[in-house]
């Protein structure tokens, strides 16, 4: 009983242990914040990765595989599968603003692609952008010239008729170049155009975007044997841009209509030609796709989905002659390198901060040791009035426990306050100190992730309490070993 009384009294009358509690508080908060931000970052990346590639992808190589439509239909029949879409993938050159870049070209069927990946939501430009841009470039309505007014009104009318995202979905450009047959639309990753720059709020500006710009796309068709044929070149107009959230993708990928890319790559259905003579053989080669992506039903685990799809694909390939081998990959397997890197980084940071936390443990040790030294006489007196060694030890252990709980509690509260307001804090730093902690162009995402994982947070808090206990272990032991006779001999 005297132990509780003394713990309480020592807590109230001493400043030093409050520093120990403060150290625990800061370390706890630090680790929780790091884990939360990095964990949130990882989660965002996972979500983006899933959004981009569906949950499971089936593919062969760049020359593709036939019967994709039948396979998609059969996969759709599986109870585990919610949606499936076939895609053509190729690498090519894009010539825009008289600059040439290499680019990954993906031919998609927008409707089913959207079912699998929520593609529509990644289309960046909406009518609101058009309206905002119009308002920004033109003077207020009452100050407009007649011509401006006419332009304003015709634009308004046009914007009300169409939806920019729908145009992106159907690969239809808003404006076609004048005096020539209409060109097909293309959707660029938002970072493909060198003029697109994310501002501090992570927004892009329509005024510099390549929307409605004409460009040239070049791809190299491959024969079934993998040799290169004559390049296919098409002029196209940018119908919209997409922002998946993953910088690598946004900077290096464009979407074009499935059929168009199939044609360009000569992967559409065609008459077979004898490879040696070049004479038609009279048989028809089926059209080919390079990948099939699919999304599982909500309650189906990735593993279940993977197994069902793999079985289906094996059966499908086995039943047909002339099918190349197909691989089946989950999104986790596909993005293992990137996700693994971030995961490692998270672990590394956590580890580093855990090491820093050792300082807090040492600090508790030192502070408690000082208290024990200062209290040697009192300890002797307590032993003289009948307190046991164990009792004395438990005073300091209990003391460490209380400090730990206090620090862990405060630290968790502090971390929660910071994590939940981290974007406000970041904005504040940017505005008042011109210091950008989270550069969206570096970290893929425009907002600092702010969520607390209850399990991880609890774990860290418990660790903090245990660390404090560990820190008080040696001082407590020392206190238990105090020789009462020595300690009370003098004043």
């Amino acid at each position, binding site marked *: *009983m*005297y132990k509780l*009384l003394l713990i309480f009294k020592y807590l*109230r009358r001493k400043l030093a242990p409050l520093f120990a509690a403060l150290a625990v508080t800061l370390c706890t908060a630090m680790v929780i914040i790091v884990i939360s931000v990095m964990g949130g970052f990882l989660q965002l990346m996972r979500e983006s990765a899933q959004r981009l590639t569906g949950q499971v992808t089936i593919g062969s190589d760049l020359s593709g595989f036939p019967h994709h439509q039948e396979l998609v239909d059969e996969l759709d029949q599986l109870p585990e599968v919610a949606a499936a879409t076939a895609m053509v993938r190729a690498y090519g050159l894009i010539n825009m603003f008289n600059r040439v870049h290499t680019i990954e070209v993906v031919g998609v069927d927008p409707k089913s692609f959207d079912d699998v990946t929520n593609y529509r939501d990644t289309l960046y430009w909406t009518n609101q952008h058009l309206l905002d841009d119009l308002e920004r470039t033109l003077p207020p309505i009452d100050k407009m010239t007649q011509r401006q007014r006419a332009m304003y009104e015709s634009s308004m009318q046009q914007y009300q008729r169409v939806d920019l995202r729908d145009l992106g979905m159907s690969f239809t450009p808003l404006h076609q170049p004048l005096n020539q047959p209409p060109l097909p639309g293309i959707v660029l990753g938002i970072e493909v155009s060198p003029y697109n720059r994310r501002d501090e709020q992570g927004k892009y500006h329509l005024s510099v975007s390549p929307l409605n710009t004409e460009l040239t796309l070049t791809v190299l068709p491959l024969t079934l044997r993998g040799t290169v044929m004559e390049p296919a070149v098409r002029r196209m107009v940018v119908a919209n841009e997409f922002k998946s959230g993953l910088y690598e993708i946004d900077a290096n990928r464009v979407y074009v209509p499935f059929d168009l890319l199939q044609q360009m790559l000569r992967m559409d259905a065609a008459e077979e030609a004898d490879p040696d003579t070049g004479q038609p053989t009279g048989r028809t080669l089926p059209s080919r796709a390079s990948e099939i992506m699919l999304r599982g039903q909500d309650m189906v685990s990735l593993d279940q989905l993977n197994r069902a799809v793999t079985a289906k694909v094996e059966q499908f390939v086995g039943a047909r002659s002339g099918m190349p081998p197909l691989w089946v990959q989950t999104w986790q397997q596909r993005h293992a390198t990137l996700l693994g890197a971030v995961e490692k980084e998270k672990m590394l940071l956590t580890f580093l901060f855990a090491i820093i936390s050792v300082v807090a443990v040492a600090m508790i040790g030192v502070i408690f040791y000082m208290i024990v030294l200062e209290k040697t006489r009192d300890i002797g007196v307590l*032993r*003289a009035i*009948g*307190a*046991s*060694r164990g009792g004395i030890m438990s005073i300091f252990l209990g003391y460490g426990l209380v400090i730990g709980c206090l620090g862990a509690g405060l630290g968790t509260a502090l971390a929660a306050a910071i994590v939940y307001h981290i974007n406000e804090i970041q904005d504040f730093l940017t505005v008042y100190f011109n210091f950008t902690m989270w550069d969206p162009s570096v970290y893929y995402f425009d907002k600092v992730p702010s969520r607390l994982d209850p399990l991880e947070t609890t774990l860290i808090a418990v660790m903090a309490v245990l660390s404090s206990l560990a820190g008080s272990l040696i001082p407590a032991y020392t206190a238990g070993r105090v020789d009462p006779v020595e300690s009370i001999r003098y004043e």
Partner: protein
Amino acid sequence: MSNATDQHVLLNATGLTKTYRMGGEDLHVLQGLDIQIRRGQWLAILGSSGSGKSTLLHVLGGLDRPTQGEVVFDNQAIFSLSGARLDRYRNRHVGFVFQFYHLLPELNVVENVLIAAMAGQSIVGWSRTRVEARSRAEQLLNRLGLSHRLHHRPAKLSGGERQRVAIARALINEPDVLLADEPTGNLDATTGDQILEVLGEFHRAGQAIVMVTHDQRIAQFADQTVVLESGRLVGAK
């Protein structure tokens, strides 16, 4: 010399030696010392500084272990007891009063007295005896003239007052013997005499007291005095 079964004998110490090894040399502080404490006795042990008075007192109180010899209390050799039982012996059967009071600075007067009662109790046990212990503490402090200072902390008290709190702490568990180590050593003569008066009062009420001092005058307050010399007791003076 009466034997240990004598029902008037409270503490019976035989053949106590205490040797400190300092550098290469042995320092023999106690050298085969015998002593008996009887119920209700007020014994003064007189000795010069460094003669081993405190050492003897600590051994009698179970706080220090002799190099050789035993202290028998209630037919039990206390240094053969387990650690927990020895703690209990110190808590229940002896009460220490020190020259420098040794109160706990964080606790107020009542708490300083009650802590000795708490030390022997679990939380459950304490919740049962709390009220009784508290009233006993207040009664004691009242008898010692401290009833108006119950909630003051030691730093606010004079030396005499502090020593009276220490006496209350030593007596709160109604020990069989009070072990006082130069209880007046740090006080002026008048205040010291008041403390001795107080001890006398408790003695008249039946409290056994062993008091060590180097001061002949103070030893006279006790009803018997022995002298500690060369590690042995050399009869009454």
